[in-house]
């Protein structure tokens, strides 16, 4: 089971990466009608392999409680699916917003040339003028609350996706008897605590050593003083 699960997970990661690369490359293009399907395909294959053919998570997950042996995986898969859909929706908004920015930039460029039709227009000058207009229009939009919120939502959804993916990785690591992230984290914390304790002990020992040597030095200084002359005893 873990081999199939691992394959599903790797395929899922690949699909997500491909989707992300596509999104980055097509920042202004229309968003594909469904980006969730390639993301779900690995899980469909995985569940088919478990004898659950015909299972359609897109139809089944909403509101359906997870049941049976693979309950936890189903829940994680449902959350990943939900996050993928959220990402798709937000990205569509973001792409739309970017498309508007580009349109506005073209209008600004056109206006600039309309106002100065006699200005020289070599390809290089045209290009630089385009960059100026695009950057100016983008800056105006990028400072808006809407843009900041959209970016943050995309970032937050991706972060949540990573957290869920991390939970799957933990489960896979346990299946394969590999050290999990949680175990490594615990070790890091222990090493850090030990390092801090050692550093504190060394500092305290250095401080007490310095205090001891300074008191020894003052003792030695006293010792090196010439012996006092014995008092003369006077007979009463």
């Amino acid at each position, binding site marked *: 089971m873990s081999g199939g699960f691992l394959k599903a997970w790797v395929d899922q990661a690949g699909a997500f990466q491909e989707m992300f690369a596509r999104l980055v490359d097509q920042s202004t293009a229309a968003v594909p009608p469904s980006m969730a399907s390639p993301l779900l395909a690995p899980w469909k294959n995985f569940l088919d392999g478990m004898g659950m053919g015909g299972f359609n998570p897109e139809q089944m997950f909403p509101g359906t409680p997870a049941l049976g042996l693979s309950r936890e995986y189903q829940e994680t898969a449902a959350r990943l699916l939900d996050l993928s859909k959220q990402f798709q929706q937000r990205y569509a908004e973001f792409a739309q917003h970017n498309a508007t920015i580009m349109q506005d930039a073209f209008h600004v460029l056109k206006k600039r040339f309309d106002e100065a039709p006699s200005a020289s227009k070599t390809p290089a000058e045209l290009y630089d003028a385009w960059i100026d207009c695009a950057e100016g229009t983008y800056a105006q939009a990028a400072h808006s609350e809407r843009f900041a919120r959209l*970016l943050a*939502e995309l970032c937050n959804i991706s*972060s949540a996706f990573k957290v869920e993916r991390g939970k799957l990785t933990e489960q896979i690591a346990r299946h394969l008897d590999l050290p999990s992230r949680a175990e490594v984290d615990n070790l890091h914390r222990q090493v850090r605590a030990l390092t801090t304790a050692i550093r504190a002990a060394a500092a305290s020992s250095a401080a007490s050593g310095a205090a001891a040597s300074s008191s020894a030095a003052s003792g030695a200084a006293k010792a090196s003083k010439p012996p006092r002359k014995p008092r003369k005893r006077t007979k009463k």
Partner: protein
Amino acid sequence: MNASTESLAEMLQSAAAMQESGRAVLRTMLGMGDVEVGTSEKHCVLSEDKIRLYRYSALARSANLKPVLICYAMVNRPYLLDLQPDRSFIRELLLSGLDEYLLDWGYPDGADRFLGYEAYVDGYLRRCIEFVLREHVIDSLTLLGVCQGGTMSLCYAALEPKQIAQLITMVTPVDFKTPENLLSKWAQHIDVDLLTQSGNVSGDFLNLVYLSLMPFRLTQQKYVNLLKMQGDRVQLENFMRMEKWIFDSPDQPAAAFREFIQWFFQENRLIRDELTLGGRPVRLKNLTAPVLNIYASKDHLVPPSASIPLGAHIGSQDYQSLEVDAGHIGLYVGGKTRKSVPAAVTAWLQARR
């Protein structure tokens, strides 16, 4: 020939010229190999975990000034300050007879994900400063903080004012919530707890954010402008050094990054006098040493409005600000500023010897 035919002919000529330039650029780049950065001679005098403290070899007779410890940002590599011999802030200071140390935060990895901001400021930075003080048998030194390293330096100087004889901040954010600060606007709604829950924040993610600040210039125009270099090897090497530096961004330790974003960008604690480190309040009013605050008028990462308020919040009676006509990076490598800025720093220090 009518006007439109002339204009078409001109465009075709320009296109042919651009194609030729492109070929020349490619030819030169193919034979260039790797570029060298950070060439000034230095040796490591202290190392702990990922951090290294370097001391630079003298290049001139000592100016008999306090040693300068440079605290660079964690989000980029410090060799920007010593990119190449003729574009080196560090080298210019060495030529003025300064004794320089550089704190290099290194490349944090998974083992550092739980290290908080305090561990960096009150831990590593403190131990580096105390090392220099011990080495020179002095009570105080000059601390020079760059960008995020400037904010860290401010925190430390407010915690330990007696150890800082002079403080120089360069392109340092102090007020993180000014209207011009685009990074800050974007940071407000980010769930940083969630972002850092899966570990360190990748340098690639940060690079993507930086590129998004001016996407058309930084992802398109700057490469198209290569054509203007006509295959000039020196110019292309300079470009490649900068390119190497820009994308050489270390991952950020999760806990320290989370605290930096929440405490500074989202809550603006430093300027609101609400920051504590290790249970101790960080109060800028405690900072009484002379301060030189250098900022860049065209800075798109740390706008001048983020740096300028420093003077009004510190306790020092000797405060001077210096506005430089440059961008965030151009301040160190720009044609005019690469000599004028180090000269201004040296003159300011000499006036306070």
